[in-house]
């Protein structure tokens, strides 16, 4: 599946509880600076930055530099690979492909 790579990235990235918490805070804020994210998180700024890099690589957040601050916001449709995977037709078609494999085995052993 060509969508597997982005889906893997999204799932792997969100599997880490700290990173997921960072992502949820960004979503709740709409847009938030690295400094604000670090403040009160109990995690060092360098650890936060590392999580932000992963989130950005997975296409989940986007950044914007303003002066000395970098602001993060949720990436538009960043969760789309996950939503696709969970959607009715995503499940439906994967299921149908499995049925097709069996039918083909029967008619063309």
């Amino acid at each position, binding site marked *: 599946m060509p969508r597997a790579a982005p889906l893997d990235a999204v799932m792997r990235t969100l599997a880490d509880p700290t990173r997921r918490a960072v992502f949820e805070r960004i*979503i709740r804020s*709409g847009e938030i600076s690295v400094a604000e994210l670090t403040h009160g998180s109990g995690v060092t700024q360098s650890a936060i930055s590392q999580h932000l890099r992963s989130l950005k690589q997975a296409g989940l957040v986007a950044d914007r530099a303003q002066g000395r601050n970098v602001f993060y916001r949720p990436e538009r449709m960043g969760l789309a690979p996950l939503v696709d995977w969970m*959607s009715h037709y995503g499940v439906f*078609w994967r299921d*149908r*492909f499995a*049925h097709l494999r069996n039918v083909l085995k029967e*008619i063309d052993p």
Partner: protein
Amino acid sequence: MNDAALKTDTQEIVVDEVFPHAPETIWKALTDGELIGRWIMVPTGFEPVKGTYFTFQTTPAGAWDGVIHCQVLEVIPNERLSYAWKGGHEANVGYGAPLDTVVTWTLSRVEGGTRLRLVHAGFITPTNDSAFKTMSGGWTKVVQKLGTVAGGLH
């Protein structure tokens, strides 16, 4: 909200797998009514002829009778088949919401078999998104918020 914003909010589902069978065999499974019934659903009125209308009966939801109305759009034997896939009712959200989509099957010969690619295109987010209903707790909020961020279809 304008047309351009709406357009960018349609999604497609892609499933792409290689099968150890010739394209002709897979084509048969895609275009023979009896065979289609064995792995997708039983079609009514299907013919692999451009313009043909056919239906699938699925599970009803609310005011929707569960009938999917299809029309064959393109037939290139052993290579490509596409049909419109419409159904649903405006009163529904998630499963059973209005659907105006297109299913396209593309076959390509590869070493040892055939690559079969399905693209089911035209889903409108978040209307057609069952995940909006099935995701629970924090994720519901996350996704709702994302929907707002994505340009506000509400």
